[in-house]
């Protein structure tokens, strides 16, 4: 009788447990990017959180892709690494044609959209929000793809908390033809707000720049912060016993 039951169970389908992404494990925080006079500027901190633990503090979350693009990701770090591997293969085959044509930022962005959307349709998403920026033939391009395949282009984009904290600043203060220095200042302003207000942010960031000439990713550095507010001194003065 037992074996009969087992046989019926088999008829119902595959024995393997469902394998699909349920939740992320090691995650990166926001990425913020803007178009400026010569190209794109993209900033991301170097934190990899394991839940609420700020576990890894030297994670590079912005990487160059081919000759014309840079990719920044927030969300699951292992999925980002997988995406980098896929794109590496893509760029490799593109280079192997050896014919003077090369994949520009628009093409890479479109490819990523297809990849993210197809995974989402299989209920096995790559748990990332991606920002793809680049310059090709003088044309600047900045786009975003989410883990469900939503994609769009804009003059300034951000992922995660960046959308809530950084974008309002950018909407007010971004303008066409920002100089490099002004662009960096603007990004640092956004990253500072994120550092103060986003629990998963760490004070170690990199800013990447891409222009027609090429890619530069800065060395990691920290932002100056100010904590000397009166309210932070003797915080429990009005409420004895609290902390």
């Amino acid at each position, binding site marked *: 009788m037992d074996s009969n039951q087992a046989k019926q169970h088999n008829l119902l389908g595959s024995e393997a447990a469902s394998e699909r992404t349920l939740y992320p494990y090691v995650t990166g925080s926001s990425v913020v990017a803007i178009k400026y006079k010569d190209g794109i500027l993209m900033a991301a901190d170097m934190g990899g959180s394991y839940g609420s633990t700020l576990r890894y503090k030297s994670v590079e979350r912005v990487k160059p892709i081919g000759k014309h693009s840079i990719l920044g990701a927030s969300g699951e770090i292992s999925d980002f690494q997988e995406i980098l591997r896929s794109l590496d293969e893509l760029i490799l085959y593109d280079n192997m044609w050896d014919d003077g044509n090369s994949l520009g930022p628009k093409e890479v962005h479109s*490819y990523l959209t297809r990849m993210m959307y197809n995974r989402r349709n299989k209920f096995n998403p790559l748990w990332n929000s991606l920002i793809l920026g680049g310059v090709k033939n003088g044309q600047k391009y900045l786009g975003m793809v989410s883990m469900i395949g939503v994609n769009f282009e804009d003059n300034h984009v951000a992922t995660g908390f960046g959308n809530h904290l950084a974008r309002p600043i950018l909407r007010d203060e971004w303008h066409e033809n920002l100089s490099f220095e002004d662009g960096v200042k603007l990004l640092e302003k956004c990253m500072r707000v994120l550092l103060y207000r986003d629990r998963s942010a760490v004070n170690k960031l990199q800013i990447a720049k891409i222009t027609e000439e090429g890619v530069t990713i800065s060395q990691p550095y920290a932002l100056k912060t100010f904590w000397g507010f009166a309210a932070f001194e003797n915080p429990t003065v009005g409420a004895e016993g609290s902390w």
Partner: protein
Amino acid sequence: MFRNQYDTDVTTWSPAGRLFQVEYAMEAVKQGSAAIGLRSKTHVVLACVNKANSELSSHQKKIFKVDDHIGVAIAGLTADGRVLSRYMRSECINHSFTYESPLPVGRLVVQLANKAQVCTQRSWKRPFGVGLLLGGLDESGAHLYYNCPSGNYFEYQAFAIGSRSQAAKTYLERRFENFKDSSREDLIRDALIATRETLQGEKLRSSICTISVLGVGEPFHILDQETVQQLIDTFELVGEEEGPTAEPDADAGEGVAAEQGDVPEQSGAADQGAAPMDI
């Protein structure tokens, strides 16, 4: 070419190192009706002769749109050409969907050539019996390629394939140096005259030829019969003077050819204002 004991299989080499089946396939291209292509820096014009079998039937389609920025003219086994056009359209549309940008012509040409090569190295296949003139636009400008049944491909400033294509090639050889900077109208005119050359005296009418244009800011499209007839009428006035006298003088020296060249240019310039290019 004569029959020999090495020509049954495409996978059999001859002692002289030839694959006769592939060469026979190229013969099939030479038997097809003519197809002509020319390009400037910004435009590509494809033209072909379409002779219907009888007055009752329509003529075969020999020019195909592959994408907004690529078109192809074929000569030889048109059925093979149709199948390859379908493959090319598929490749272009898949690329557009994935990368949201047009497939570079050079890559399509190589993919097509690789596909043709496969058929020269399988005992259960035969080579495609069609030659393809691919015209396309990419970042580096306008391009014209010729794809052979052998799997070879070449880039051209101007070329003609099919029966009596030599007459067109002779004409194009005289004029090709100017094509790079030709205007769109001049390019079309040269295509029509080259087409007329392949007809060997028969009157050029829009019912027996097809012209297609593609260029910067102008997606690939086939000109309709009326427009083509208007163009022919405009150019014929000029052409009648140049055509019969230019051919025998071509060998006589550049001075004569230059003289002949001047006459059409003058009246051509005058006519260009008058011809309504409502395309």
